[in-house]
């Protein structure tokens, strides 16, 4: 490496935090463009945006229908035998629940909880996971040994059991739910970031940065981190549905968001006693949950394909037939937090 190259590298890395430099930006633009060509990914993005808009405008729908989320309508909302009424009856678009509350409005308010928990916990887990992974990978030695052991322990722990214990002590609440989910989510990200950092820190440009007097923190967060943004972005997208499912599961078990705040999980738990009389009570919340998680998973897959230039190479190296993107994504390693690990190792 010549001196001018080193200076160039150093300058490029200095300008990184302010916008990634020209090189970096064009790389992201390319990725974005590739993503827009992926029909499945675009459709997923549309679904997610619609979901977010519905969640934000939930109070609006509540005022249009005059059905506040927590208000039971004992006269119009239940049949004479006390069972929920079906979709379309008495202005209940998707029917009612077991005490005559508007199911549609409750699903919308449930979307707020699900998306909020999903995004907030993913943000916390990503920041914590990336920081700890960088520190473990860059410093190495006993720091790495301790942190890696800790990461493995967290990954192997039966998290629902601990969530049960914590709920038993503190009672279910939004804070506890977010805390528990974040606590069990960062480790997977850390493991991958650590692996990537281990190999990146041996690269010449890091050596160059060090010889120019850059300190460890600067190297970690300004030189190494931008090169990890791709996998981290994919992981973060794939963690959102995991967190959404996690929250729904906790609420389903009665240790998540406390009543009467609607959550998809608790709505489905209530619906358990009404299988035979009210199909809508189970089907609509399930559909909302499934559509959301599926959209995020498909988008995560799409982002991975768009980010990874290997996708194209696999196309070329194949039997000469162009493959669908999703299939190519699977070639690179399965989706989900567990599997993007393969990307990093």
């Amino acid at each position, binding site marked *: 490496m010549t001196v001018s190259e080193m200076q160039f590298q150093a300058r490029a890395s200095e300008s990184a935090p302010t916008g990634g430099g020209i090189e970096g930006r064009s790389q992201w633009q390319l990725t974005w463009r590739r993503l827009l060509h992926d029909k499945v990914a675009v459709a997923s993005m549309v679904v997610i945006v619609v979901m977010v808009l519905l969640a934000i405008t939930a109070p609006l729908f509540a005022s249009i229908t005059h059905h506040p989320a927590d208000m039971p309508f004992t006269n119009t909302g239940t049949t004479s035998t006390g069972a929920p009424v079906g979709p379309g009856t008495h202005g209940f678009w998707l029917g009612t629940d077991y005490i005559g509350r508007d199911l549609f409005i409750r699903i919308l308010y449930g979307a707020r909880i699900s998306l909020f928990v999903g995004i907030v916990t993913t943000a916390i887990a990503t920041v914590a996971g990336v920081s700890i992974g960088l520190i473990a990978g860059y410093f190495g030695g006993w720091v790495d040994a301790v942190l890696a052991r800790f990461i493995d322990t967290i990954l192997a*722990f*039966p998290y629902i059991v601990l969530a049960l214990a914590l709920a*038993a002590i503190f009672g279910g609440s939004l804070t506890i739910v977010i805390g528990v989910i974040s606590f069990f989510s960062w480790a997977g990200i850390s493991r991958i970031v650590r692996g990537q950092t281990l190999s990146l820190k041996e690269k010449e440009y890091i050596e160059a940065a060090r010889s120019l007097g850059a300190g460890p923190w600067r190297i970690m967060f300004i030189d190494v981190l931008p090169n990890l943004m791709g996998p981290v972005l994919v992981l973060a997208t794939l963690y959102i549905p995991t967190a959404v499912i996690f929250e729904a599961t906790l609420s389903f*078990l009665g240790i998540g968001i406390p009543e009467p705040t609607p959550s998809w999980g608790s709505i489905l738990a209530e619906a358990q006693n009404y299988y035979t009389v009210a199909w809508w009570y189970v*089907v609509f919340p399930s559909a909302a949950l499934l559509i959301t998680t599926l959209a995020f998973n498909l988008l995560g897959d799409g982002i991975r394909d768009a980010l990874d230039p290997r996708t194209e190479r696999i196309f070329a190296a194949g039997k000469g037939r162009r493959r669908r993107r999703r299939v190519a994504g699977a070639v*690179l390693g399965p989706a989900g937090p567990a599997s993007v690990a393969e990307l990093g190792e």
Partner: protein
Amino acid sequence: MGLVWFLVRRILTGIVVLWIVATGTFLLFFTRPVAVVARGLAGRSATPQVIAEVIRNLGLNLPLSEQYWHFLVQIVWHHNLGYSYYSQQAVTTIIAQDLPITASVVVGGVVLWLIVGMCVGILSATRARTLFDRTATLAVLAGYSMPTFVLGELLIIGVFLPLNEHGFDWIQTGYAGLSTGVIPWMGHMILPWVTVATVQAAIYTRLSRGSLLDTMGEDYIRTARAKGLSERRVILRHGLRAALTPVVSQLGIDIGYFLGGVIVVEEVFSLPGLGFDSVQAIETSNLPVIIGFVLVASVFVVVANIIVDMVYAVLDPRVRIA
């Protein structure tokens, strides 16, 4: 020799992990003000006399270090996990009652999970980009996005209820012990198995497919083909062994996750196992039962991880040295 030494070392670390979990549980539950702990252990409707008695019996007014010692001695020496406040049953008795039910779910679920996951993965990899592969990929994504309890509820609505309506009553919810016969037992377990296995199998299908595809591109596979082995032998003997190692290492990580699924499945299908009872214990703030179940679950995870590590060490000799 290497393998035995490896096993011994893994068991020792397993014991250390269990000790950490026990200590953590103790700290979580017992380092709060004495009155709060006593109320938790005595139940919601306890009178002040009962609470005073609980404090005296459990020595909650002793220094923390003595309590900790007492806690460990009770577990390790007397195998005593305390008593359910409501039924006065020993927690160990409750666990012994629940264990066969949970074990039924776990064993059947794991078998189905691994068989389906691996087989579909291998078939997908060997028939990459065919219709089968694409259908499988799509199904896997749907399965992966499906929360366990949603799948369980949909199976009840879509399979259990219609079948029972038409007089086909082999498939049931609830639990029937093996003593009622293998066939009825399976009828009760089949939906829980399918539910708990599907979500997990989805991940493993992708994992084994990707892993096998990567392996099949290696040079030594070409060598194996070049020396004239049948394709079947190349895949099963040469490809699969290397392809399985990342799958097995993932297995250890997913066991905790799997246990979560088992809890949910027991709740959905009203199987009175450990998961079902622990949710009940939460609802009634039955702390001794919760503590007992947390410890049992940890033992399960640690033991399962040791087994996984052993399999891993057999598959990949490099692990034994590290």
